[in-house]
């Protein structure tokens, strides 16, 4: 399966009841898959008239307690940012997949990691964050989609999947799970089973209260500040509970390379090559880009001589590495616009900088 198809099937198996999308390359396989698959399950698929409409349809579906998802690629995600801000403000769960392509503007349709800032800093207007999960392969993409639905329901927040075009387009064998794969700490029972039955805040349900309201408007003096403080408490909770990462050969590493998504796969190959030459290199791969896995990165970086951050961008995640470690031995290698830092480039850099 391609990453796009695996994410779509995983969404179906995670109980996604509503999907709306709009065509954009390189995520079209995902929308096409949902167009076929959702009606089979008697669930809702809509090709919306725009990305704006799609994200707001998701808002409506989420407001009535349904698991809802949309997907797009970079320029389309920019259009959805208004809606994501409203989802965050109204505390509505939703899953948004960004199969990232080159930018700015229309850019191109090649793989890129240049939406990191947009994804990890809220993206739309107002003080908010969204959890961001970055898969490095097809299997992980399918698992993280499932996890994203659980996180979204548990914390009542939109959750982003940041998959670069390579992850979306490449084909790999995948074992799909029937049920939620997320067993991470912090996911209580409510998170795993939270379908509409438990969402007593949702519209259109039989309830004791005469009225439920979905809102992000808090016009009375002090009301918005109080709401923002409540959201801050939630972000802090997510920060402490949902940091995810993986490591490769870091135990005795003198040199640490930090990379995520498809780029981490290339780095892993470089690590293997360098290890054959007895150069002690390891890979640290953030899986949650927000919250950034600061605790684990601090541990992994202890005692290493140099840290190289490799990205398919001109240098975005490297800022989080610098913020986390606040040391001077952090270096950056990156290419944008469809350029991908190659295995040999990484090997050469490490050898030159021993």
């Amino acid at each position: 399966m391609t990453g796009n198809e695996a994410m779509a099937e995983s969404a179906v198996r995670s109980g996604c009841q509503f999907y709306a999308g709009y065509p954009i390359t390189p995520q079209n396989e995902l929308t096409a898959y949902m167009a076929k698959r959702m009606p089979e399950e008697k669930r809702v698929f809509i090709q919306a008239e725009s990305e704006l409409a799609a994200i707001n349809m998701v808002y409506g579906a989420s407001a009535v307690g349904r698991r809802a998802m949309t997907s797009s690629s970079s320029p389309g995600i920019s259009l959805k940012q208004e809606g994501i801000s409203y989802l965050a403000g109204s505390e509505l769960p939703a899953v948004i997949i960004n199969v990232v392509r080159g930018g700015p503007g229309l850019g191109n349709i090649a793989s890129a990691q240049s939406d990191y800032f947009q994804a990890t800093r809220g993206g739309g207007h107002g003080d908010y964050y969204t959890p961001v999960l970055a898969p490095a392969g097809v299997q992980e993409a399918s698992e993280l989609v499932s996890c994203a639905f659980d996180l979204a329901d548990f914390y009542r927040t939109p959750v982003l999947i940041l998959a670069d075009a390579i992850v979306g387009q490449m084909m790999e064998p995948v074992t799909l799970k029937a049920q939620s794969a997320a067993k991470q700490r912090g996911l209580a029972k409510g998170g795993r089973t939270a379908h509409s039955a438990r969402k007593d805040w949702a519209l259109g349900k039989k309830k004791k209260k005469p009225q439920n309201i979905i809102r992000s408007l808090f016009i009375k003096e002090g009301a918005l500040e109080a709401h923002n403080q409540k959201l801050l408490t939630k972000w802090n909770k997510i920060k402490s509970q949902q940091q995810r990462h993986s490591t490769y050969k870091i135990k005795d590493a003198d040199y640490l390379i930090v990379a995520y998504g498809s780029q981490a796969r290339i780095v892993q190959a470089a690590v293997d090559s360098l290890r054959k030459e007895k150069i002690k290199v390891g890979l640290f791969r953030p899986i949650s880009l927000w919250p950034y896995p600061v605790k684990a990165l601090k541990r992994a970086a202890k005692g290493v001589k140099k840290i190289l951050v490799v990205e398919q961008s001109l240098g975005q995640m490297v800022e989080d590495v610098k913020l986390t470690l606040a040391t001077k031995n952090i270096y950056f290698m990156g290419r944008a616009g469809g350029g991908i830092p190659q295995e040999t480039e990484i090997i050469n850099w490490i050898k030159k900088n021993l």
Partner: protein
Amino acid sequence: MKIIYDLPKSLKKVPAHYCPGCGHGIVHRLVAQVVDELNLGKKIIGVAPVGCAVLAYDYWNFDVSEAAHGRALAVATGIKRCLPDNFVFTYQGDGDLASIGLAETIHTANRGENITCVFINNACYGMTGGQMAPTTLLGQKTATTPKGRESEKKEGWPLQISDIIAGLKGVSFVARSSVSNPARVKQTYGYIKQAFGKQIDKKGFSLVEVLSPCPTIWQKTPYKAGRWVEEKMSKVFPLGIIKK
């Protein structure tokens, strides 16, 4: 003693924040009355616009979602497709429905979504201080047309959005009325009830446009604002059923 006139159950007993002479309070009441009469209280979900009426949920006693500016019909589509047996309506102004949300309006209508839209046309952006709306009349002075709206090669003509929507196949009912005098209020009530009935009968998209006075922005007394609706607005936007 027989009570012949009372507040509908679907309307809260609270003072409204709307300006004197504003049409919102009347239309809120008409919607609530129809909701009661059709016994929709437990099934109804409203979608509020961006504008003065965003606080409609402070007056209605049923479930309401906000929507981003112009996106009410997209939100309503998401709701209705998930809960087809619930009753879903949007309440939107002219800027919301006919300008920033034009794509959502046209496409929701064209898909024949079984949703009802109550469309308040006051020929201006009221809440933001009276800028030109797509429905502003020619010659009408607004904050952004200080010399009056000019048509050709400038601001164009008042957009006949209801007539455009009526031409789409997915649409079951379109009517235009006003709330400028008691007879018109009664007519509006009748149209809202008919439009709601179309949704109950699963006939597709229905819309009621209400010409509604905005005395504060128009700088008229409530009485004169009502007269202006009758003498000026109703000439540009003729009242009656457009599609049945």
